[in-house]
């Protein structure tokens, strides 16, 4: 393993190198981000004005469904797996991931899964149209035939996630450089260790849910049919037992990224490291016992409503601990505001807004009003976009110079930041108002009184979409012709093993483990 990368396409198809695989994941996720984003653009274009202008309602439903599925499973999750592949071995001083061949398999399943899922758009009956949460009986009794392809795509995607997670856990637990105890691990490694555990715990639950659907649709079972003694609400329980940890699977690695960027540009060590670790673990634990807060309106006993309400609110405590720690890290630091830091600060502010609306929707009696309205859409986009996507973007700006030895164009990147920041808020802040005024989510058309804010929201969405194309341009330009950088510490305030390596990072690193004191 002393030599460099292989030549040609074979390098990417047969690679066992964690950096290559990380790169594959990142580009794949960006491609999916653009695909899911184009679905979002279609949605916002249709909602620009009331009435049906561009597409049919059936196709609108396919767009909302595919947008959610592609963004969650195709864009955000693989993006953070890509970062994990790139950074974890370098951060813990390992030569590679623990199981490099399986690592390659985990990645290459994804293009097959998403090709299958996306191809349903062109099949008879159209793509899945039951929302990304695929509630039964919409996804069983009333589903298009293509639901079967969706089910098996989810199956192999889940296999990919489980293998990827096993790899990450084995790497973190087994491959750390001598002297790197668990409580010396960088936060990004910690958040991924816990995320990987969550993934292994809940991906099989998702597999179980789609398997039950498969059986109900094709083999006459009655899991989700009350006529046979089953219960459609069972689907929601199973789905959200997966789905709630899933949102932390998405956001925990984002927390990890932010916990690196803020100290670097504040030139201070992370405030409250151990409380960050414990907060991450508590969030992960709580994520397993709050799932039915997504289901306050299905007719649960009052005791259940109360339990899930209070348990959910508990999550605000460890999450707030994290926010306070980030703020305390910045406090009296010698801060500078390069693009990664801008995205990180925007993350802290906007994610906190998303967290607050999260506490609002967690209040069971109030949720009767918020449920299935645009308020919920606004809430989770503040978490998913301003949380996960902003942090992923910050990570790319932060580590790209290290990866390829070239610096991005700072002023262009700042423009990109401000356009996405403004575009994002113009898109989603008005959706809070729309939801509170009673506009339901997932509707292709709406009443006239919602027109103004919808138009504003759509304009913001196009702005945000454009900013992502600019991001793509900046990244490609950096890789091809950015200003070369060669000092190991690309950022003067950065700490950690990855910054002791040469810039750009050699193909193989830490073939002999470094000593951590």
């Amino acid at each position, binding site marked *: *393993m002393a030599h460099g990368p292989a030549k040609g396409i074979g390098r990417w*198809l047969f*690679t066992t190198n964690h950096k290559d695989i990380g790169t594959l994941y990142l580009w794949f996720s960006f491609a999916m981000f653009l695909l899911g984003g184009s679905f979002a653009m279609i949605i916002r274009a249709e909602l620009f004005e009331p009435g049906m202008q561009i597409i049919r309602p059936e196709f609108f439903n396919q767009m909302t469904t595919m947008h959610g599925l592609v963004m969650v499973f195709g864009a955000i999750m693989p993006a953070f797996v890509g970062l994990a592949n790139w950074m974890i071995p370098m951060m813990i001083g*390992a*030569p*590679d991931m*623990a*199981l*490099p*061949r*399986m690592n*390659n*398999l985990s990645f*290459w*399943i994804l293009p*097959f*899964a998403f090709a*299958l899922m996306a191809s349903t758009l062109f099949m008879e009956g159209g793509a899945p149209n039951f929302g990304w949460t695929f509630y039964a009986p919409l996804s069983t009794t009333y589903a298009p035939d293509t639901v*079967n*392809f969706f089910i098996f*795509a989810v*199956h*192999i995607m889940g296999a990919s996630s*489980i293998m990827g*997670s096993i790899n990450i856990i*084995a*790497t973190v637990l*087994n*491959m*750390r450089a*001598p002297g790197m105890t668990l409580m010396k691990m960088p936060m990004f490694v910690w958040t991924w260790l816990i995320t990987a555990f969550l993934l*292994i*715990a809940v*991906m*099989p*639950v998702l597999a*179980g849910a789609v398997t*039950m659907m498969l*059986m109900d*649709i*094709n*083999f006459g*079972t*009655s*899991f989700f*049919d*009350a*006529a*046979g*003694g*089953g*219960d459609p*609400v*069972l689907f929601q329980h*199973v789905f959200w*037992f997966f789905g709630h940890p899933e949102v932390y699977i998405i956001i925990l690695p984002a927390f990890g990224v932010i916990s690196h960027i803020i100290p670097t540009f504040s030139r201070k060590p992370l405030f409250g490291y151990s409380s960050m670790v414990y907060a991450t673990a508590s969030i992960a634990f709580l994520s397993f016992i709050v799932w039915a807060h997504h289901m306050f309106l299905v007719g*649960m*006993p009052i005791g259940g409503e109360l339990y899930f309400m209070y348990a959910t609110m508990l999550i605000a405590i460890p999450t707030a601990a994290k926010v306070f720690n980030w703020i305390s890290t910045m406090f009296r630091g010698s801060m500078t505001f390069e693009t990664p830091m801008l995205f990180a600060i925007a993350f802290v502010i906007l994610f906190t807004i998303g967290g607050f609306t999260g506490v609002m929707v967690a209040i069971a009696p109030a949720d009767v009003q918020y449920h299935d309205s645009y308020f919920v859409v606004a809430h989770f986009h503040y978490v998913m976009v301003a949380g996960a996507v902003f942090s992923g973007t910050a990570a790319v700006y932060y580590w790209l110079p290290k990866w390829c030895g070239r610096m991005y164009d700072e002023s262009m990147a700042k423009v990109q930041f401000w356009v996405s920041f403004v575009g994002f808020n113009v898109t989603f802040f008005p959706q809070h108002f729309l939801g509170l005024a009673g506009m339901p989510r997932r509707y292709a058309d709406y009443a006239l009184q919602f027109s103004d804010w919808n138009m504003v929201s759509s304009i913001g969405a196009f702005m945000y979409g454009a900013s992502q194309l600019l991001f793509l341009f900046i990244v490609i330009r950096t890789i091809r012709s950015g200003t070369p950088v060669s000092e190991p510490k690309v950022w003067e305030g950065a700490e950690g093993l990855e910054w002791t390596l040469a810039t750009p990072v050699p193909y193989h690193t830490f073939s*002999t*483990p470094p000593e951590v004191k």
Partner: protein
Amino acid sequence: MSTESSYHVPEQSRLPIFAATGLGLIAYGAGSWVQGGSAMFFLAGALVLAFTLYAWFSLVIKENMAGMNSAQLKRSYVWGMGWFIFSEVMFFAVFFGSLYYVRNLALPWLSGEGVGESTNALLWDGFEAAWPLMTTPDMVVNGEAAQFKGPDQNMSFPGWDKLFSWLPLWNTIVLMTSSFTVHIAHTAIKNNNRGKFNLWLGITVALGAIFLVLQAEEYIHAYQHMGLTLESGIYGTTFFMLTGFHGAHVTMGTIMLLIQFLRGLKGHFNSEDQFGFEAASWYWHFVDVVWVGLFIFVYVLA
């Protein structure tokens, strides 16, 4: 960790992309097969995957025999297998959880308890919860026209007088015994006693096969004589899904142990190095524990 400086990072490999292609074909093929299309793609994918896995495991074994695997790398395999089994635990947890939910919450609500009062009065008037559920809500409302009919008979404990002709009891005995025999084999190889290892591992494989034959017998009996099928309402659904997935896992476990048995005959194992066998035996203990859960919650407490 300090002495292990040479972690074996394998060169480029063609295996993963073949495995991914196999899985892709399986997913596409299964999707078209279940909706009445051809099974060709599915079978092609399964073949590709099977050959790839064969080559992959052969390679891993070869690498290990060639001494390329450091103690640290072996720990990676240990973690890998451990977490894989944990994922399987969660998979079964879904189905056990669903059984719990249906029996203890959904059916009582359907019969009008608690929050289900109007559901019962308006939709399923006259339905009464019971387990095993012999009369589905559909039958109560639609009689003979019902789409979901309950089973004629169920698999529950038939009473003490019929104890010894009760198949699940024998299945339990067979599987429990196999857990002991695999442990004896484990102890034998730890003591470098290969003859004893081969004997007891062979017995374990045979017990696994016997279990599968008995299970098949039970299914045939259920379908032909008890009117109990996958479509027999929620009882048939949960019964066949839980025992079926368990049976599939026993099949997997038996194949895994059989391969270890063949490797044992080739002399692949010694007291120091027997991880392939150990991993398979953990898996076997896992399917055994699942069966105990099944025996209690699907057969006895019903």
